[in-house]
């Protein structure tokens, strides 16, 4: 199985299409979308429709913290975050909103545990910022003895956590396009980065690909025309903070 892991698309359809095309070229035969399909970006409705199409083709799709409409009508002027969220859900019809709301928080495929944030408390949306939090998530998932890999998004960074010769988890910063051996006699946790809103200074879309036959994990960065997406957001009057974030990748 070649499993393409895409997360935090954030209504950025051109970035999603670029990653799908790249993954197909790498021979991906299974897609998993790890949540946060919408919010921030300019194409919420189109992105949801594309995701539903992927689901019909067999993709696994999880729910992230941005995929449910806030229960209370948020004050549109309060923050740019709220502004974008309320704009986003106005673009989505009832059917699309209901589809997002019914998505599961976790999924298991073979020896892989998938979750938007952490396996120990998927609904709490914890951010994996260090080895300790990564360890909690990995430990929770590997209570199931089959599980070897935990993949998630949420932090918008590409990271791989592994055990060295000591017992504690260690952080490894992967390099673009390098196939990393991730043998199944060990446990691994990776955050696959963000398709639609990278935050590490590189504007290219992020995703990762697991080849379960060779036990190799490759983190990819894919170019797409992010400036056109930024311009579209400007034309729509979306908050400037979100636009500069896309332009600078931070």
């Amino acid at each position, binding site marked *: 199985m070649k499993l393409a892991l895409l997360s935090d698309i954030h209504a950025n359809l051109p970035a999603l299409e670029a990653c799908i095309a790249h993954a197909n070229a790498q021979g991906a035969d299974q897609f998993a979308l790890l949540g946060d399909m919408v919010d921030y970006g300019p194409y919420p409705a189109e992105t949801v429709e594309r995701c539903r199409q992927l689901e019909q083709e067999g993709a696994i799709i999880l729910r992230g913290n941005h995929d449910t409409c806030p229960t209370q009508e948020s004050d549109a002027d309060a923050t740019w975050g709220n502004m974008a969220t309320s704009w986003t859900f106005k673009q989505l019809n009832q059917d699309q909103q209901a589809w997002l709301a019914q998505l599961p928080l976790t999924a298991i495929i073979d020896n892989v545990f998938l979750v938007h944030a952490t396996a120990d408390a998927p609904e709490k949306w914890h951010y994996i910022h260090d080895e300790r939090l990564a360890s909690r998530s990995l430990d929770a998932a590997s209570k199931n003895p089959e599980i070897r890999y935990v993949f998630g998004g949420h932090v918008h960074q590409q990271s*791989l956590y*592994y055990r*060295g*010769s*000591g017992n504690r988890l*260690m952080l*490894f910063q992967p390099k673009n396009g*390098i196939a*990393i051996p991730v*043998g199944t006699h060990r446990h691994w946790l990776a955050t696959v980065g963000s398709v639609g809103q990278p935050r590490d200074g590189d504007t290219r879309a992020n995703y990762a690909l697991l080849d379960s036959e060779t036990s190799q994990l490759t983190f990819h960065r894919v170019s797409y025309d992010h400036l056109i997406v930024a311009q579209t957001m400007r034309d729509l009057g979306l908050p400037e903070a979100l636009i500069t974030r896309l332009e600078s990748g931070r």
Partner: protein
Amino acid sequence: MTRLVQDSEIDGFKIGPRIHGGAMASIYSVTYADGRTALFDMVMKVPLMRSGDGGENIVSFEIEHQLLQVLHGPHSPRFVAAGDLSRVPYLVMEQIQGETLESFIRTHRNQKQALSIETITHLGAKLAEALHSLHQQNVCHLDLKPANVMISKDDCMVLLDFGLSYHAHYPDLLAEELRKAVGSPAWIAPEQIIGVRGDPRSDVFAIGVMLYEMTTGELPFGSPTTTGGLRQRLWMSPAPPRALRSDCPEWLQEVILRCLEPQADQRYPSASHLMFDLRNPNQVIITERGRKIIRKGFWWHFKRWLKAAGMQYQASPLPSEQISEVPIVMVALPNNDVSDATLYALRQATIRSLGTRPGAKLAIVTVINTGIGAGSDSNQSETLLQRQHLASFKKWTEGLNLQNHQASFHVIESSNVAQALLRYAEGNKVNLIIMGAATHGLALQNFITTVPISVAMRAPCTVILVKENLPFEQIA
């Protein structure tokens, strides 16, 4: 794992005789069980794993498996297959025909024969070349010693045993939060003792130990068995090789002791620089380090010991950039029919190139074309030619700031200038060639390939072709 039975079969391999049984692994000769002929002779390496064995042995096996799959080139054995870790762990790889450096040294020692300086230099340069190839693939060996080096039948050095190695693009499975020394006590570098993994200059240190061993017959820091003994090399300078062997030239001692500096940033920045010095002994700049014949005194050592004991030994930061960021820059300097404008343009290009590359080594090369009779008569020795051109070289280098750059001068005689430049660049692992664009040949270049064009086409590295500012009509 118990000993494999000869003539039994594992995953399509027929087990042959055991050719080596070490503390960590056994090595068997193997063939394909179905009688297929292999492209090369094969061996199977089987790690020894007894109950109660630490995980380290398994991790080493895992690392070697990872690295053999991606390493390429003549300096590492070719990979064939691996057994599943949870079932029968084994690695099948190319069997290197030849002799280990360890056995080569031992044979000479048993015959009470000292290795000649030429042999040491030759082996050292070959070893540095093999190591450079490894470093270029983002791998540090970290367990270099004579037993892990094969001298193949065609005089190529092949490095073995990557169980403790480090790949810059993979998670380091041997890293842990409580850092400790991993390596072989006699050859391990000071920074490895305090747990630093991943510095290519640790391997340069190991070559220094081997050069010292080949030259003097002794190990510079012995084979310590205690932590205190290991830590000695953080402060102790070994006895100068010339004190132990009177015919050891100053330049060789300079090279060896530079490799053995406790601080990584005082050693050669890359194995290619070490290889360069071993191949160009007359260009080595000899300092007090190369001349001394008595080791430093008690007080000097006492002060360094105090620093090290007080844990003041600070490992040099890991090189943040690729090793090619400390390049060997080669300038091809014309020696006749050359305008001041060309020389000026070449100097400006060199200044710019060195300015962005601190520590870069500068090799100034000129080829005397013997084909057109413009050069000298062939009886002249290289040294004499060198002396004749040295003055013009020196003049040319005036105005270059060479404070952080080691410069060397080379005169080559050849009837094929392009080929001579290319051979020099390949043989010395040059990273950048700067040369004139030879504008006056341009009119004919559709018919005859000019020297710069053929160098640019076939060079193993980046080539900068420098043009002087000529009026347009002259170029056309």
